[in-house]
């Protein structure tokens, strides 16, 4: 049995199925991300895991124990909320100490452990500040310290970085991952930001419509999407029907039979790499500069594909010019939408 195990979890809100017979397993020390669009059920799953929402059916096991009916206060779970939920009337150290006080930890230990946490999240000097006197990033770190100080079995993070600026978010992602590894903390992160999921996770569970549609390492998810939904959600994949694929690359021999195929925009190359690479020629319909990447919308016959190339040349290519590219058959991924 895995460290955290969820079996046949279902939940209905006002007649709407939010979670449908869902199974999920997390190993000790792993950082798993629940990734999906708004309303896919990921936050509900997190709340059920924390005990704040009761499931209709299903079981939750943590560290071998059935905790399905255990109250949140006795579940030994730490949670960081999207809104931080810091206590406005308490200082940084009082916020962090709150959980220890509730668990009746001796005063001397509380002082020591709070100080440790403050140093771990890099908030030394802010101990006596109130939450309103801190920036968003600092508040988030207090929330993290507060949930870690009680040494929970599982840490739950509900879109913890979504309210922060891009730069601060990137720094905090890194810091979060470092701390998680340092403490070997089993962690579940909920996010709708696929870049964030890719950057921090050991494994990603992709959710849609109350189900898990695919799970695997960030690399597996990114390079082998099983369905059109995953392909579109995880990257800017080109999703083509078999007919369209045949139109743009008639010479391509694909072994698998599928109705649709996905091609990552960055797999189109300006030079052939292998002998199998096939040549495609199309007209540039649109060029957008995305910093280090140039994105072309290329019309090959009637089919329009997105192509990302590293932004190397000093002169950008103009709309209307012809561009030749090469595609490796291995990069054409068949999609089987019925397979989750």
């Amino acid at each position, binding site marked *: 049995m895995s460290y955290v195990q969820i079996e046949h979890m279902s939940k209905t809100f006002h007649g709407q199925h939010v979670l449908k017979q869902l199974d999920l397993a997390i190993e000790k020390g792993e950082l798993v991300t629940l990734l999906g669009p708004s309303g896919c059920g990921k936050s509900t799953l997190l709340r059920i895991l924390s005990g704040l929402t009761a499931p209709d059916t299903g079981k939750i096991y943590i560290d071998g124990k059935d905790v399905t009916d255990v109250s949140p206060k006795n579940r030994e779970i730490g*949670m960081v909320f999207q809104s931080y*939920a810091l206590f406005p009337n*308490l200082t940084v150290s009082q916020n962090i100490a709150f959980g220890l006080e509730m668990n009746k930890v001796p005063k001397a230990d509380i002082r020591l452990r709070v100080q440790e946490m403050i140093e771990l999240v890099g908030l030394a000097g802010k101990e006596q500040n109130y939450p309103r*006197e801190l920036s968003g990033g600092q508040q988030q770190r207090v929330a993290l310290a507060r949930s870690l100080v*009680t040494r929970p079995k599982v840490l739950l993070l509900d879109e913890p970085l979504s309210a922060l600026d891009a730069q601060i978010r990137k720094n905090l992602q890194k810091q979060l991952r470092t701390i998680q590894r340092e403490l070997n903390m089993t962690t579940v992160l909920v996010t709708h930001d696929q870049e964030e999921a890719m950057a921090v996770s050991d494994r990603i569970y992709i959710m849609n419509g109350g189900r898990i549609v695919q799970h695997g390492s960030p690399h597996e998810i990114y390079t082998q999407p099983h369905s059109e939904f995953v392909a579109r959600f995880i990257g800017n994949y080109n999703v083509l029907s078999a007919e369209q694929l045949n139109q743009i690359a008639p010479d391509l021999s694909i072994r698998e039979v599928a109705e649709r195929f996905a091609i990552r925009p960055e797999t189109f190359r300006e030079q052939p790499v292998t002998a199998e690479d096939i040549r495609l020629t199309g007209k540039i319909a649109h060029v957008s500069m995305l910093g280090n990447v140039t994105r072309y919308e290329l019309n090959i016959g009637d089919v329009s594909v997105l192509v990302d190339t590293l932004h190397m040349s000093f002169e950008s290519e103009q709309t209307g010019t012809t561009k030749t590219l090469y595609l490796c058959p291995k990069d054409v991924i068949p999609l089987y939408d019925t397979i989750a």
Partner: protein
Amino acid sequence: MKRIGLPSLSFALVMLYLFLPVAATVLYSLATEWNSTVLPEGLTLKWFAELYGDPRFLQAFGRSFVLSFLTTVVAVVIIVPAVFSIVVYAPRMEKLVQLFVMLTYAVPGVIMAVGLIRTYSGNGIPMIVITAGAYLVGLLPYLYQGTRNSLLALHARSLMEAAELLGASRWQAFVRIIVPNIMSGIFVSALLSFSILFGEFVLINILVGGRYETLQLYLYNKLSASGHVASAITVTYFVLMAIITSLIVRFTRRSFARKEVS
């Protein structure tokens, strides 16, 4: 020369309309004689001395204070946790509560008093307790609105959840986290409630009358005896209300300032 605009003029007229009677009352409470002259013939503090020297006044003031204070405290203790439970855990029930709140306005004081007498007289419960009970219901709108607004501004639900996940019971979370954060809101509502009860006349007059003479009943009885003393009572009442209002303003500003910072 600077021209006086219409807004300033109308403002001045409104202020005059509002404050002229107050100024006249204050002057009358300080006047020796004020019958046939534009301004009082002389100024004196003897009406205040007479008033504050009257043990009946002090007792009436004390009774009003005790009745309003105790009722407000009991109302806060009962209504605030109830509103908290509804707003945080059963928001769907809020519509029902809002209906109750409207109902308290729907019944005129005289009808309520008659109804209360018919229902409760002769069954052994002292009428003063019935009055306090009716007051308590009457305070529902003020305490409900104040508490509800404070809770919504605080995002009380996520704070409760955060506290519970950290090992606090609901009661501990309520006392340690929610109450300190909505205290200024509760205090403002309580002051408002206190001042409303302090000035209440209809119910207490019909239900209890002379058996429990409050400040308003004392004032009513003094009106026929001496206009000067009645004015002195009114001025005393105004001063008390001014203190309460300034406290409300101060606490409201403080909670606003806190929100702006955060």
